[in-house]
């Protein structure tokens, strides 16, 4: 369970959207950590902030690690891009979006499980 102090205060719908995305990023970190078969395509959940999203996207673990290299980047299904997000990559199977500077980028940084806790 997340400590309250780790959960950013939410002031706008866009910030709630960003926080939802961080939850699905955490889910995908659990998928990656539990993956025994390291070759081939791996199914990950779409990290868009729409709570009812059911999309699953498949990519290699190498491609996944490239997304995770930047705390502000998220993996989404094609077309699942919000207007306030920057598209870093688009493809047939998935897209990579980045949170902009400001509160949304800060949420992505502060909740990154790979980030520097200090």
């Amino acid at each position, binding site marked *: *369970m997340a400590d309250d102090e780790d959960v950013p205060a939410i002031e706008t719908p866009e910030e709630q959207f960003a926080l939802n995305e961080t939850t699905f990023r955490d889910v995908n970190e659990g998928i990656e950590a539990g993956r*025994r*078969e390291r070759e081939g395509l791996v*199914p990950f*959940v779409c990290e868009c902030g729409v709570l009812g999203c*059911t999309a*699953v996207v498949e990519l290699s673990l190498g491609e996944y690690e490239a997304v995770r290299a930047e705390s502000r980047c998220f993996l989404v299904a094609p077309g699942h891009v919000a207007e306030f997000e920057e598209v870093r990559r688009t493809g047939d199977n998935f897209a990579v979006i980045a949170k902009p500077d400001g509160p949304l980028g800060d949420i992505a940084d502060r909740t990154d499980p790979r980030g520097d806790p200090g």
Partner: protein
Amino acid sequence: MSRSGHAAVPYLAIEGFVTSADVGGIRKRVRAFGIDHGASAAALAAIVLAVSEAVANAVVHGYDSAGGELRVEVDVEENELEVVVADCGRGFTSAPTRGLGLGLGLMRESAAEFEIRDQPSGGVEVWMRFPLDSAA
């Protein structure tokens, strides 16, 4: 329920054919196990929510709501409760199924640690860990 070879570790195992009608019963057994081993109210709430979601996910997504073989294992070590929910269903695939992401998100938010493990024989194994003394 104890398992041979795990005498020193409190252990609960539930195994068999499970449908959506069994989710509540499994939830109650896991909750009782948590109470017996000192889980705080906050920990119990998190455990029960996560286990319910994991079992329901297996029934609905692993077996397309028809139900199937399921294994739930719970143990306590060093003041932490670990849960494994494993099915032999269709596995975690790219076919969209209603509510999958939301259920996984709830599990992840509830547990201190969380992994989804693929199984060579097919199906999905969800592993979660909860501190028994967590505060609300």
